[in-house]
């Protein structure tokens, strides 16, 4: 078997042309997913069954099904319904990118809400009592005590989910999106050189992951500055 170096040199810039779409999928669904996760978290810890139970069902459904199946349901399944095609969401759902972002958002939101809940549960009960004893309201305790501490506690697991989301964006290529993986598939179809192309693609994702790790490492150090004895 030969290893075609010139093919790699030629195809890497082509794949990198999809970086914008990969980044867009990651950042947009990452941010929307985080907002969704915070809503789900607040529903879960509200102490009200009519908020908690729907959130639990939602999380169960989206964690319990493969993301690829979710993407297919949204992209291929939803347009079957007239109501969807006539709704204000059609401009988004008509586009494969919109469908991919929607699927990734709904999926990551379910996971991240549980990650955040883990952080919230890790905040010491004594701190809540100290807040109560000072006369803080539930909302004030959440904003000023729970949220900052839970964020720090949840961060390592959250960075894991962001990395996982990066790799899930590759699934968007199955619904015609020309992200980095989508472009790679096209090149492979034309050159019949899957080994060189997919290996280079894998390395590109690894470099990305490295960047995300570094970024979260820096955030972790910043948020954890009060856990060090030396100031």
């Amino acid at each position, binding site marked *: 078997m030969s290893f075609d170096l010139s093919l790699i040199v030629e195809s890497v810039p082509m794949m990198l042309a999809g970086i914008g779409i990969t980044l867009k999928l990651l950042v947009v669904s990452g941010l929307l997913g985080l907002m969704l996760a915070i809503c789900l978290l607040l529903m879960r810890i509200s102490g009200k069954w009519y908020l908690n139970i729907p959130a639990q069902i939602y999380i169960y459904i989206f964690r319990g099904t493969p993301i690829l199946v979710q993407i297919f349901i949204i992209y291929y399944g939803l347009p079957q319904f007239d109501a969807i095609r006539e709704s204000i969401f059609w401009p988004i759902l008509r586009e494969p990118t919109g469908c991919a972002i929607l699927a990734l958002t709904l999926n990551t939101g379910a996971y991240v809400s549980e990650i955040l809940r883990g952080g919230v549960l890790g905040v*010491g009960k*004594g*701190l809540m*009592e*100290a*807040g*109560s*004893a*000072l*006369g*803080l*309201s539930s909302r*004030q305790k959440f904003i*000023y*005590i729970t949220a*900052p*501490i839970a964020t*720090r506690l949840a961060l390592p697991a959250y960075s894991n989910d962001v990395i996982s989301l990066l790799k899930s964006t590759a699934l968007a290529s199955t619904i015609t999106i020309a992200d980095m993986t989508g472009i790679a598939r096209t090149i492979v179809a034309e050159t019949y050189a899957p080994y060189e192309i997919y290996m280079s693609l894998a390395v590109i994702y690894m470099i990305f992951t490295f960047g995300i790790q570094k970024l979260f490492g820096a955030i972790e150090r910043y948020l954890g*500055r*009060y*856990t*060090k*004895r*030396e*100031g």
Partner: protein
Amino acid sequence: MSTEPLIQIRNMNKFFGNFQALKNINLEVNRGERIVVCGPSGSGKSTMIRCINRLEEHTDGHIIIDGKELTDQVKDINAVRREVGMVFQSFNLFPHMNIIKNLTMAQQLVRKISKTEARKTAMEYLKKVKIPEQADKYPIQLSGGQQQRVAIARALCMKPEIMLFDEPTSALDPEMINEVLEVMVELANEGMTMICVTHEMGFARSIADRVIFMDAGEIVEEAVPSEFFDNPKNERTKEFLSQILSH
């Protein structure tokens, strides 16, 4: 100033599920009085003082703080909590805020005091507990004794009418106990109304107006310190005192 007791507890019971933690508690504390509560572990001391600022909800009976009865109304509870400062065994300083922020946050959020004013008050109380130089540090950078003094200052910043102490020295290394007790003694001498759950019997003897002994959820004995220590009436009190004073 009214002559009505600042704290009135009448026929109060507290259940955790089927377990009765407090049995028919009756207690009145006047303005400026200093009460020490002692008793064996699990006797309900902490639960009783935690009911006073409603960290625990009493099951029945009445608790009236400065004329306001504790009920389910959240608004009333926060109004009462503003008047009642609490110091915990495990300090419970907010780890993500520096010392000055620990002291100013509730002043600004609850008492709606300006940042400048809150900082001024905070520095005053940090001086009072003798650690103004630690203002910009994080709690973890302080010793246990210093953290507990900050916790006392944090409670005082709210200008409470009553201070509750829940075993404030139990988590401290022996050499740090005195620095915390000194602050408490100073507070007592200034006329603060205090209820302290503690086993520091020297402290009880020197500052308490009354010592209360609890066992199995009941107030078993209540007396002035000289009477309590030198001439206890109840068998359980005698047994308890002999155990903790024998060493």
